């Protein structure tokens, strides 16, 4: 969350995180090259440059696999939520590692000929109708183009200008890019491997990422299915008993529109705000109150519970919903949200009869 634009939004924690990632990356490349030289002391893959190209490619694929696991794991288990905080830094670093892999490959394999290296990359292997000799570089190039687009638009500047839904839709291109990378490796490095271990590892990574996303998606689908039974009575829906809402936390409830509302308890008061954070549509109701402010569990954006407005100097706003107690003592939420910035009616349990 920033009130002004900065090229890279570093803070103490993010600098330490980036240094850890760089150290892990250096260690990975060192181990990869050492083991590679021991396993294949002669031949094409004994060349240190070829090994470095493969180490960088392998590191980028591993980093992207981890990035793609963070989202669904955080949906399935709250303990993974802190990993979301630095995911964007990890994504940009993955692009930089992929750039090093791409640049070195281009220089090494296509830099010494009469053609422009980029032209050579595209025309040197025309065997598009042959599985054994398929130009796997095409898959890698397409995936790299996606990674470039996503890294270039990773800043909050683009998020604000494109709007959260458009930005999220654009960044979902990373999913087909992952499939392209699997094909790049399958038709590239794996084609010359005789050991079944490497294809098995690839299948495991693909299955883990796809399985985690499908599990998290099905969980959300089941929650959405519950919306079909939600019916508003005179514009209000019954949420729960006040005692069902833990202090400082929220109960998330579906609305007939398909959106969700987060009903928070702050001491003896109960307020409701829309569930989607302005930043990346994160689930505000899965966050908690910090310093009296609703805090998004994804990246820490904060809003006042009373009017849904971020505290100064920030200016983001989410809509509030009116709440009231029913005659039976249940929490009711008004389906229609209030205009942005308007304080919603709340329940004061201390004043309730």
């Amino acid at each position: 969350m920033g009130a002004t634009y900065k090229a890279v939004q570093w803070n103490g924690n993010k600098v330490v995180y980036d240094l850890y990632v760089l150290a892990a990356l250096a260690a990975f490349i060192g181990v990869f090259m050492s083991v590679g030289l021991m396993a294949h002391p002669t031949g094409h893959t004994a060349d240190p440059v070829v090994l470095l190209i493969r180490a960088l490619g392998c590191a980028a694929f591993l980093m992207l696999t981890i990035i793609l696991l963070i989202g669904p794991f955080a949906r399935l288990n709250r303990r993974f939520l802190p990993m979301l905080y630095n995911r964007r830094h990890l994504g940009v670093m993955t692009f930089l590692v992929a750039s090093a892999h791409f640049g070195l490959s281009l220089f090494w394999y296509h830099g010494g000929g009469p053609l422009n290296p980029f032209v050579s990359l595209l025309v040197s292997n025309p065997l598009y109708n042959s599985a054994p000799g398929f130009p796997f570089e095409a898959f890698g190039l397409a995936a790299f183009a996606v990674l470039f687009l996503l890294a270039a638009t990773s800043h909050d500047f683009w998020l604000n200008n494109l709007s959260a839904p458009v930005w999220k839709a654009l960044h979902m291109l990373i999913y087909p890019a992952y499939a392209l990378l699997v094909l790049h490796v399958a038709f590239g490095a794996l084609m010359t491997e005789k050991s079944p271990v490497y294809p098995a590892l690839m299948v495991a990574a693909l299955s883990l990422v796809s399985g985690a996303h499908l599990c998290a998606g099905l969980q959300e689908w089941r929650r959405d299915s519950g919306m079909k039974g939600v019916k508003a009575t005179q514009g209000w829906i019954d949420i729960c008993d006040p005692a069902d809402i833990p202090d400082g936390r929220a109960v998330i409830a579906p609305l007939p529109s398909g959106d969700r509302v987060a009903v928070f308890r702050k001491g003896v008061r109960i307020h409701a705000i829309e569930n989607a954070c302005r930043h990346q549509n994160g689930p505000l109701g899965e966050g908690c109150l910090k310093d009296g402010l609703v805090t998004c569990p994804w990246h820490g954006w904060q809003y006042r519970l009373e009017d849904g407005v971020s505290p100064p100097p920030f200016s983001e706003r989410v809509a509030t919903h009116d709440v009231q107690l029913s005659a039976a003592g249940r929490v009711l939420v008004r389906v229609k949200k209030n205009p942005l910035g308007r304080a919603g009616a709340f329940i004061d349990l201390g004043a309730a009869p």
Partner: protein
Amino acid sequence: MKRAHRRVHLLLWPVVYLTAALGLVAAMRAAPVEPVSEIPSAILTEDS
């Protein structure tokens, strides 16, 4: 996440998985092949 995003997300992954898995199977059926002994730019130099 908004509901539309959740739906697209769920529908996209089976496609991603099937595409990648089928490609992987096709590649593995053709493997292993002998490593290319010459780099592409050298091959182009000879041809030209």
